[in-house]
């Protein structure tokens, strides 16, 4: 690792006195591979990958973890987290995860899907997998756009939002309304923990990590499907800088997709709030 850019600090302490292994407070978890991520600069995918890798490492379930990668920007997720992975057809990750978790009841199985994958082409699969209460974790990245294919409108695109296929903004008469799919899923009795988080600030990342930890624990305790939506940015698709898109997300996405837990119980019980 490069140390050149770190200059000597003012005062008595030399920078080399600080950069010692015993002073280490944060470093890349060993579950993340050395492959550079192909994501655009500032993409929320990298942060969510990192949180998942940290949690799998901290909970000591690397050998039991099986991820199901989607079609979309996260299609190469299997290159970045050092666990077992299976690639699914577009939108079919919950169906594939169902099979994996039923033949490996002790495995921690999760799907990692975007909004084009989960809320559009895979809407039937996710609804039925959650309704059956499959013992899986679903990580849903909602950035309101199809990022990989060039920024087309997704079901979660906000009203008036300009995309490649809605150049005058999403018109609700023509294109329908933005879909709060997490709210729909919270009503299904098969789910145990349904929450919506964001990773645009350090506090948000820490909260999201706590939520994902609880969701993973629910899967390990066989409580039913856990569903974690992460409201994210797509700075390339939105055509903004990473910092500006974080700000835009806070001002526009979060009012429509409010953060917080929607359901926290066990499979078969209704406790939606």
């Amino acid at each position, binding site marked *: *690792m*490069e140390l050149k*850019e770190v200059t000597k600090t*003012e005062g008595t302490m030399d920078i080399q006195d600080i950069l010692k292994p015993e002073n280490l407070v944060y470093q890349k978890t060993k579950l993340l591979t050395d492959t550079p991520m192909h994501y655009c600069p500032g993409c929320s995918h990298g*942060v969510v990958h990192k949180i998942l890798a940290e949690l799998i490492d901290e909970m000591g379930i690397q050998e039991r973890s099986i991820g199901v990668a989607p079609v979309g920007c996260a299609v190469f997720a299997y290159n970045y987290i050092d666990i077992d992975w299976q690639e699914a057809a577009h939108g079919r990750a919950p169906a594939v995860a169902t099979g994996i978790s039923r033949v490996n009841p002790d495995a921690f199985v999760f799907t990692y899907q975007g909004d084009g994958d989960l809320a559009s082409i895979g809407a039937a699969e996710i609804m039925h997998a959650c309704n059956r209460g499959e013992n899986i974790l679903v990580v849903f990245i909602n950035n309101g756009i199809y990022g990989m294919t060039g920024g087309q409108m997704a079901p979660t695109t906000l009203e008036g939002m300009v995309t490649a296929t809605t150049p005058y903004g999403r018109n609700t008469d023509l294109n329908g309304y933005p879909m709060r799919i997490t709210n729909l899923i919270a009503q299904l009795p098969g789910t145990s923990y349904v929450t919506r988080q964001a990773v645009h600030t350090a506090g948000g990342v*820490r909260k999201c990590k706590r939520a994902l930890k609880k969701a993973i624990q629910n899967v390990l305790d066989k409580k039913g499907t856990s569903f974690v939506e992460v409201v994210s940015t797509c700075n390339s698709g939105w055509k903004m800088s990473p910092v500006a898109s974080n700000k835009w997300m806070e001002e526009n996405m979060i009012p429509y997709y409010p953060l917080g837990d929607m359901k926290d119980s066990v499979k078969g019980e209704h406790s939606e709030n």
Partner: protein
Amino acid sequence: MARVIGAVVVDKEECKGCSVCVEACPHDVLALHFEVNSKGYHYSYMKSPEACVGCANCGVVCPDTCITVYRTKAS
């Protein structure tokens, strides 16, 4: 009360210059360098290292996990 002092090491070849860490830093320690790395990105570096308290906010928000954070009490 002993003053807490920190330092961060940015892997400048991994950094994509998104500047999310620059925004996340509460003490304005980080900035983007005027030079670019081999990918052509203006990488993040410690502009004012004396202000760092090692809160690790930069490392937590970094999408490419290229920041390592150290913290100790100032002697």
